[in-house]
């Protein structure tokens, strides 16, 4: 979870004994930050559970080569997720529709126990020259969706950006064992796309989950989000025990979002039946989304 302080600073602060700070918690001003069990090489990884505001923030970063479909994924999610649980899609593009800084789609909900959960979906700029921006956007990520291009000719680009991801994770002190990565093989519909057998081979090469997609048609987009959120939850829960500390189970975490998603035509349709009819964009309540 995105922490509000530098890791080094957080790690160095002693934990006071008074409530509500348990033996695994730190009190910093009005916020209570829970230490994770895991210790990365950069120091303790912290998950911010802001008890004063009863809020948790989860950061998911869509990473991958230029033009692999990262922004398309977020655009599709923006159309599929009900405005009740998502904000505006912020995109910053160049004149030729290339992402200049990042895209941001906020998704939020309240848990049954009254905690607010914010999921921030970011994309990084894919162009090689924007590596510094990629590294900044990747800071404090809780999970990564790596959007690979299925075309055979793009294998080298995919590998190059995969290595770039590893480097930038290392640079940001993100422990690869604690920050899950999910691979989306996008553009499955293109003629020179790898076959399913070839993708199975890629799947066997590593531990990351691999999902096929045609993002421009919305195929595989929800499945990717579901998988990356599930992985993020499991990783965070393993470190900071969300289910105990804020009574948020994996089922609730996912269903609070996906019950507000138009899952028609996706593999999630049965698990999260779409509301009928699919909610149109309602007028905003108050002065904001």
């Amino acid at each position, binding site marked *: 979870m*995105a*922490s*509000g*302080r*530098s*890791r*080094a*600073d957080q790690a160095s602060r002693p934990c006071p004994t008074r409530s509500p700070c348990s033996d695994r918690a730190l009190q910093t001003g009005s916020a209570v930050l829970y230490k994770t069990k895991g210790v990365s*090489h*950069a120091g303790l990884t912290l998950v911010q559970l802001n008890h004063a505001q009863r809020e948790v923030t989860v950061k998911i970063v869509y990473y991958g080569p230029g033009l692999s479909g990262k922004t398309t994924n977020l655009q599709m999610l923006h159309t599929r997720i009900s405005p009740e*649980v998502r*904000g*505006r899609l*912020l995109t*910053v593009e160049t004149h030729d529709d290339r992402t*200049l*800084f*990042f895209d*941001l789609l*906020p998704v*939020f*909900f309240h848990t049954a126990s009254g905690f*607010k959960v*914010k999921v921030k979906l*970011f994309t990084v700029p894919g162009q090689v020259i*924007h590596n*510094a*921006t990629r*590294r*900044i*956007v990747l*800071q*404090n990520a809780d999970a990564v969706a790596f959007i*690979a291009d299925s075309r055979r000719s793009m*294998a080298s680009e*995919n*590998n190059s950006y*995969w*290595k770039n991801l590893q*480097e930038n994770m*290392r*640079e*940001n*002190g993100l422990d690869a064992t604690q920050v899950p990565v999910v691979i989306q093989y996008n553009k499955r519909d293109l003629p020179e796309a790898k076959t399913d057998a070839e993708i199975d081979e*890629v799947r066997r*090469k*590593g531990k990351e989950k691999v999902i096929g997609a045609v993002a421009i048609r919305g195929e595989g987009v929800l499945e990717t989000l579901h998988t990356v959120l599930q992985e993020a939850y499991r990783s965070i829960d393993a470190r900071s025990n969300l289910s105990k500390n804020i009574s948020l189970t994996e089922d609730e975490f996912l269903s609070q979002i996906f019950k507000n998603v138009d899952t028609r035509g996706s593999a999630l349709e049965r698990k999260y039946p779409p509301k009928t009819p699919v909610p149109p964009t309602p*007028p*905003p*309540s*108050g*002065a*904001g*989304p």
Partner: protein
Amino acid sequence: MSGGSSGGGPAVARRESVLQRRLTLSDMVDLSSFNEVVKSFVELYRVGIKVFDENGDKLSDVKVGNGDFCGYVFSFPEGRLRCTQTVARIKDGPLQPGQGSRPTSQVDPSAPPGMLTVQCFTGLRYLMTPVLWEGDEIGRIIFGPFQPDDLNELPPSLTEISRGLDLALLQTHLGRIRRAPESTVAKVVLNFGQILQSLVAVGQKTFLTTQLHVEATLETNRELEDKNRRLEDAFNKLKELDRLKSSFLATVSHELRTPLTSIIGYSEMLSEGLAGPMNSEQGDYVKTIMDKGETLLKLITSILDISQIEAGKVRLNFGPVDVPELVGSAISSVRPQALKKGVTVDGKPRGAATLVANADREKLRQAVVNLLANAVKFTAKGGTVAVSVSGPEHQEALGEEGYQITIEDTGVGIPQDQFDKIFESFYQVDNSSTREYGGAGIGLAIVKSFVEGHGGRIRVSSELGRGSRFTVVLPMTPPTPRTTQVPPPVVPPDPDRF
């Protein structure tokens, strides 16, 4: 890659990005432009507007019409008290119904659920609505006070504050306050909220991108500074290594060659009888000292040559070269060695036509000499070394016009699996300490470097016990750059994920 963590080390703690910060309404709204919008709304609708951020800090407060009315009421102690309570309610009170407020939708069902109506003790009203962003309340908008159209007379909560209240004056002041149906004001509030929403969206985009641009520039700068520092360190280390290498080469050159030259020179003087006559056995010994000295000198020179080649310091100076003449000259230089060994050098390279190519005469000659010396060395007494030159003609190996120099011997031959290795520096087919043939194993490495420096290729074919054939294929005009390049060692890459 950047920072002190390059090479997989621990990451450096950096300043937190703006993307991790919780933004306030003040961050996302350009205050001067926003105030212009608020003023134009107030002028248009004649109702005051206040906007506060989530911390209760005022972003905008434009009043209209109510100054005299409220000022007069405020001049009475009880009026001041009740007024302060109302202001506290709208500014800091909860954005939920209660404490003197009700949902606006109770009266106007079309009003959004979050909007509240706050009743002032004077009979005036306020409408307030939260500013929501990403599901958070980041501020509140307050419209009012306005005179609701259902206000027919001043309420007791106002008239009871003092017996000295001038009701006629109050009515006059009240007349300056906008009278409107609550539902109309609610629509204006909704409209204002939507405009604020757009301003926040634009403001957020501008704020984040501007901040991120600065962060990215600082990050790039940090990365460049770090790379510069590492390059400078590497450069200084290389300079030091270069100095040490030059010093080493100079030492080798001086410390080995100088005494060796003396050994050869004094042996020559002895051999020529300058120190008095010697018997034939002494003469033979001295001759052997001279021969071995010459061999050693050549070896040292070759080692220096290969050092220069590997350092990329050899520069080829191309010019027109008569190739058959060059080959003839090379044959002349090995002929004494061949004669001594009883090997015939079949040297009729000139053929029918002259062949003038662009080449570095000295380096090419050395390449041919090395090949010939090698052929003679590995050919037994009675054997033959044949040299031929062909071309100019199209060379398949080069894809352009070129010529070939072929040196063929009837020597011991080379095992097929050694064809590539014989061109490596210091490689010997027979590497045992008891091997029959001497040498440091660098002659062919020099040949290969020089030939490739000319843009040419060298290939070998051989049959064990029957002899070997070295074919040098060279272009008529070598490509630039004219410096021999030894490719850097190949580092195996990480395995690919895709």
